[in-house]
């Protein structure tokens, strides 16, 4: 049995571990904090599996490969909600909605009455929207815990260590899935800061992620059930992993308030911030140098693209195929 070491226990590391274990590899995972936690980007993720919406600004592979995600997560964690995505704008920003529709596919334009029926708590507030009914969402921490539990049950070991992938690669196949933590070894990786909030608001029920388009401040709200909502997320060209600014909070909260003023009464449960690892085209990369494989750059598409990336890592190792996500640079 091939022994493979994975370093990094976020969404990339766990998905790669799952795919390799599914191919009968003997897998161990190192994480500097042992378990999933606030040190990982995926802890703060929105958990939207929305390949078509992302097509608004992302490159084509995100739309195509992202379509694998919902089925993958459903099969591995049974934690997927398939209720679609609703995209709306305030009347004065209708141009944004038109533009969004022009740049995306696989949606239907729906009326105010349709919105009222789908999301009664938005009733009367919006007179048109786009419904991407094939999209899905999940609760990131729940899904990752399911994934981890399943891996442990299948014999994958987890160890707490700030392991150096180059050292482990001397002993055997090693996959570096450390995200932005690997910046010192990957020159063209940069951080894109994201800030988010988790709110508790018993007065609002939403059945699916809602994206509110705005020329300056775009917001998405992902329902996590039981009156819990994730609000996200800023996108700032910065590698800062701390320091949530008042401006960002104001922007996120005022956008949520515009969606439904009842959010004004919400309790703020968590404020999160992290730096998403990204390459210049915001697409992920798999790079290899002998026994060392680096899988990185999931940007804001961790849950959306990690399944495809994990599949490609497994195919590269076991079928000797050259992954689509591979470029000319050596790991």
């Amino acid at each position, binding site marked *: 049995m091939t022994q493979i070491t994975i370093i990094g226990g976020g969404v990339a590391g766990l998905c790669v571990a799952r795919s390799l274990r599914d191919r009968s590899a003997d897998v161990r995972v190192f994480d500097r904090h042992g378990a999933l936690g606030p040190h990982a980007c995926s802890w703060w993720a929105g958990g939207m599996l929305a390949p078509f919406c992302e097509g608004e600004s992302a490159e084509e592979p995100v739309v195509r490969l992202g379509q694998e995600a919902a089925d993958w997560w459903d099969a591995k964690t049974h934690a997927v909600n398939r209720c679609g995505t609703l995209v709306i704008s305030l009347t004065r920003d209708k141009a944004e909605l038109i533009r969004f529709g022009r740049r995306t596919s696989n949606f239907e334009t729906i009326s105010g009455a349709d919105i009222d029926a789908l999301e009664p708590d938005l009733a009367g507030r919006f007179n048109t929207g786009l419904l991407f009914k094939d999209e899905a969402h999940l609760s990131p921490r729940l899904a990752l815990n399911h994934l981890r539990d399943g891996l442990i049950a299948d014999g994958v070991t987890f160890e707490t260590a700030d392991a150096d992938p180059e050292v482990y690669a001397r002993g055997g196949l090693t996959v570096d899935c450390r995200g932005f933590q690997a910046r010192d070894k990957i020159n063209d990786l940069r951080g894109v800061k994201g800030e988010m909030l988790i709110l508790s608001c018993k007065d609002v029920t939403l059945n699916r992620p809602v994206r509110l388009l705005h020329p300056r401040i775009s917001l998405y709200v992902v329902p996590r059930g039981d009156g819990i909502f994730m609000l996200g997320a800023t996108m700032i060209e*910065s590698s800062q992993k701390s320091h949530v600014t008042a401006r960002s909070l104001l922007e996120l909260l005022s956008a949520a308030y515009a969606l439904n003023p009842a959010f004004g009464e919400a309790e703020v449960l968590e404020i999160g911030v992290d730096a998403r690892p990204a390459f210049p085209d915001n697409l992920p990369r798999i790079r290899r140098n002998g026994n060392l494989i680096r899988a990185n750059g999931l940007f804001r598409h961790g849950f959306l693209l990690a399944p495809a990336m994990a599949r490609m890592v497994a195919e590269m190792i076991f079928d000797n195929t050259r992954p689509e996500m591979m470029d000319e640079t050596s790991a």
Partner: protein
Amino acid sequence: MRDFYGTTLTTGLMLGTAQYPSPAVMMDAFKRSAASVATVSLRRESGQDRAGQDFWAIIRDLNVHVLPNTAGCHSVKEAVTTAHMAREVFDTKWIKLEVIGEEDTLQPDVFGLVEAARILSEDGFNVFPYTTEDLVVADKLLNVGCEVLMPWGAPIGSGLGLNNPYGLRSMRAHFPDVPLVIDAGLGLPSQAAQAMEMGFDAVLLNTAVAKAGDPAAMAEAFAGAVHAGQLAAKADPMEPRDMAAPSTPILGKAFLI
């Protein structure tokens, strides 16, 4: 091309670096735009521990003049602080000075602008002030040390084009020797061509390219428009007239057929 604080630019296009789908798309857009200047807004949070340096390195690699701006600053103090940070980060005296006075239109606070321009000019900065077409404000900006003026075409990001052609024409006529840049509000290449035809020295835009479906193609379209407008201005365009003026002589043409 006119001189911008001692620097002659190769083209009359200045392009912003915000809002692109990715840095790779931005790099393509710059290549095809032949822009001579890249504007970059500096968030104070990114400057504090140089957390923005990976992105700044990408901008330096564009190999064009970098014009940092104070976008989003609402007070003189904020703008001055940001300008100092920008000078340190990009090692340039150039600063595009924005002092925003109104949140909805992002209209410049011209009082704060003149004050900040005075402070920064005294401090050795080369100030590119984002202003309106108001001649009195323009005059005051020149008096406090600005050698370039950047009047708006229309509100930032609106894509409305040249909102007040009369005001802009009169600004051009009033300050024939000052480098003037149309900054903000351009949505289409034809609007950039119009500005250049009117004799402006450059145009500065961001959203029109960054938010286009194909930013690189739109960048190239703007490059063509700026070039066309500039050429036309130099070629001394004809004056419009009310009557038809046939381009071939009609005298002697047979009329009894």
